């Protein structure tokens, strides 16, 4: 049947084309597009804030310190007021709303920054479309400085001691929220892989810092 020959050839050619197209598509889509986060640390660095710096607390006279009002991390250009956050009805830590993703918040169930203990400040890493207040938190390293201003105008200076990323399923509650005997700070945001099914990051990045004495 000579009339069938062009049809068969056409099918073969079309089939091979489809295979080539499929393979190309498959190969091209196997790479993730990179994250949008800027990588250069120090870009947009801020000057250290100035205000009276108070001496670290003494355990013999645990005087109440004023509530925190703002946070500055010069190296990564963070300068934000601080919300006051509590717990959700399910017992997890409340976080700022999407509309407040540019602002961080202090957990009111934790010690106040600059008093003895581990003060907790949380902020979003991103919004649905771009970076948020703590998008560059993971770029901090040991020795970087963090400042918290309090309601009475005084300033507390902290120095980063360690930066860790934990799977949320293995969040080290005791290390982060447990008692410590000196004035410390923990900054928490999201990190690690984004889960497209649940729309959550799988990990948390925690910055540990202690007050400079």
């Amino acid at each position, binding site marked *: 049947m000579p009339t069938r020959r062009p049809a068969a050839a056409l099918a073969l*050619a079309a089939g091979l084309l*489809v295979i080539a197209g499929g393979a190309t598509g498959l190969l091209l889509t196997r790479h993730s597009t990179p994250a949008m986060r800027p990588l250069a640390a120090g870009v947009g660095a801020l000057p250290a804030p100035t205000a009276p710096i108070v001496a670290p607390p003494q355990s013999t006279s645990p005087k109440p310190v004023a509530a925190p009002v703002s946070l500055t991390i010069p190296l990564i250009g963070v300068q934000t007021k601080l919300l006051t956050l509590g717990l959700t009805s399910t017992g997890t830590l409340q976080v700022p709303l999407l509309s407040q993703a540019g602002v961080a918040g202090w957990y009111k169930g934790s010690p106040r920054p600059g008093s003895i203990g581990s003060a907790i400040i949380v902020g979003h890493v991103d919004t649905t479309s771009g970076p948020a207040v703590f998008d560059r938190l993971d770029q901090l390293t040991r020795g970087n400085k963090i400042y918290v201003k309090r309601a009475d105008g005084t300033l507390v200076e902290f120095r980063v001691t360690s930066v860790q990323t934990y799977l949320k399923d293995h969040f080290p509650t005791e290390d*982060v929220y*447990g008692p410590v005997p000196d004035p410390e700070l923990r900054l928490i945001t999201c990190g690690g892989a984004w889960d497209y099914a649940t729309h959550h990051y799988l990990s948390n990045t925690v910055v540990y810092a202690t007050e400079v004495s």
Partner: protein
Amino acid sequence: MNIWKASRKLLMLLAMSALMLGIPATAFASSATTGTGWIRLAHLSPNTPAVDVYLYSFDNSTAMIVLHHVAYGTVSPYESVQAGDYSVAMRAAGASATSQPVLSTSVTVAAGHAYTVAGMGPESGLRLAVLDDDLTTPSGQALVRVIQASLKQQVVNVKLGSTSLASSLKFASVSAYQAVTPGTESVSVSAGGTDANSSVTLAAGTVHTLVVLDGANGLEIVNLEDASGSGQPPLGGVGTGFGGTAPHGPGSAVPWLVAIGAGGLLALTGGLRLRRNRQLHAGV
């Protein structure tokens, strides 16, 4: 054949990248990574004059910390130190740093742990005690212990509200920690006919040491806040991202694999048809 080999290779690649995404982020305890613990120094011997207290790293003859003229009742703030071996020495206030110490002791600091090194007992039997300080509280509670440092009243009973914290606690000894309901309570120390009262606030998630001291008149109670954390620790991790800067993961491979499969079938059919045609022509 080649197509299947290629697809199998691709599937392997896909499987491998899926595995890699699943690898857990390395997580270390904060104190384990920084490798630090805490140490504080105290003078709790009523009839011992003021001393200079020296803290040495084990292999170093130059003191890391020197506290001058430390008088009875003084407790220093905690110092963060690298985990390891240290020694603490006491010299009479103003004595040369190279003079023979009155007392010395060694202390091993474990990462994430806190210690109080205190001069305790009467001057005639002065010793340096190393106390292990607790840094964990049961959720929603406070932790408290008592150090009995009164020589005037050698045996005391200490109550927090109606809860007994220590009964018949002897001079120069330390009670066990006790978990208590947070709040502001009265502390009463009774010994023979002498009483002392004070009010303390113990917040959830805090660790306290109550020190019974000889005061100018009778007994004195000092409330030390040793450590503090979140009274109600939040559950689990924190939801602090909306994904806007997340890397966009590879889409599903299924449509592409289906296309490859369909293309394969089409090509195979066409190829077979062509071969059959050629055989037919050859036969004519």
